[in-house]
C-alpha cells in the first residue's frame, strides 16, 4: 500500500493476469475461502462494487512518473501531485500513515503483531475518460 522512501526500483517483469481478467474468478475464490476458513466473505457489497466499477470509463494516469520509472504516480508530499489520474477536477484526500495491528493465520488461529505503512487516496469529481468525454466518479488509490 505504500512505497518506502528509500525504495530502489526493481528490474524484471514476471507478469500475471490483471484485475478485470481475474475478477471473473473471484466468486470461486470467495466460496473456497469461506468454506476453508469459515469466514463470511460473500458480502452483498461484493457484486455491486464490481458492477459499478465494470461500467466505468477508465480515467488516464497523470503524465508525471516516479523517479525515472515508468510508473505514473507521485509520492504523497507537500509539493507533489496527490492525484493519480489526470484531466480531473474534484475533491481529493491522501494519507501516508504508519500503524500496527494483528494478523491471524485462519487455519491455526495463531495471531501475530504486525506493523503497517499505508498510502491511500481518494479522488471524487469530474474527469475526462479515455473516451474523451466527461464523467463523474470516485477513484481510490490503494
Amino acid at each position: 500500500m505504500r512505497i518506502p522512501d528509500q525504495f530502489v526500483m526493481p528490474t524484471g517483469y514476471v507478469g500475471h493476469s490483471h484485475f478485470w481478467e481475474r475478477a471473473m474468478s473471484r466468486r470461486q475464490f470467495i466460496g473456497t475461502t469461506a468454506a476453508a476458513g469459515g469466514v463470511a466473505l460473500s458480502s452483498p457489497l461484493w457484486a455491486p462494487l464490481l458492477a459499478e466499477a465494470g461500467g466505468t470509463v477508465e480515467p488516464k494516469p497523470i503524465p508525471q512518473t516516479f523517479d525515472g520509472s515508468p510508473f505514473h504516480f507521485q509520492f504523497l508530499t507537500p509539493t507533489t501531485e496527490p492525484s493519480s489520474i489526470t484531466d480531473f477536477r474534484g475533491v481529493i484526500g491522501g494519507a501516508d500513515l504508519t500503524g500496527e495491528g494483528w494478523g491471524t493465520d485462519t487455519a491455526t488461529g495463531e495471531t501475530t503483531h504486525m506493523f503497517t505503512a499505508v498510502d491511500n487516496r481518494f479522488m471524487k469529481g469530474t474527469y475526462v475518460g479515455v473516451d474523451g468525454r466527461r464523467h463523474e466518479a470516485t477513484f481510490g488509490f490503494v
Partner: protein
Amino acid sequence: MFSDESRHNQIHDFNLDIRPFPSGLFWTNRVPNSGVHAEEDEGEAGVSWHVKNLALFDYFSVANALVDGNSIDAMVSYRLRWAGDGTPLTVDDGKNFHFEGRRTTATIAWSAHEAGFSFRSDPSPSTQHTNFAQVGEERNGVFYSADD
C-alpha cells in the same frame, strides 16, 4: 505489512493493479461514490472515506508488485478519517496541477482478508502516526487552467 517495527521485513503488500503494466493507471480503481463524507455535522469538520470489501491483490512485497510479480486475491475494508484542523496548503507546479486545501492528520481503521490470512488494524490513535496527510480540491490536465 511488516513483521518488524522498523518495517524492513515485508510480508504482505495489498495493492490494486497497474493497468496496462507498467505505464498505465497506477494502483487506482473506481470505488463507490457514497464512501466519501464531509463530517461537518459531527462537531468537527473532518472528511472520511469508507470502503468495504475492495477487491485487490496481495503481492507480498512492494518490490514484487512493481515487477508485476505473482500475487493472490485479497480484500480490504477501511475507514480513513482526515481531521478537521490543519494548516492551509496550496500546491501548483505551473503546468500539471493545482491543489488547494489543508495539510492535516489522519487515522485509519482497516482490515484485510485472503485465503489463509486475515488482518485487523489497531484503531487506537496512539499506535498510528501521520507522515503526511492532505485533503482539499485539485484540478489538473485539461482542467488545470480551465475556467469551467
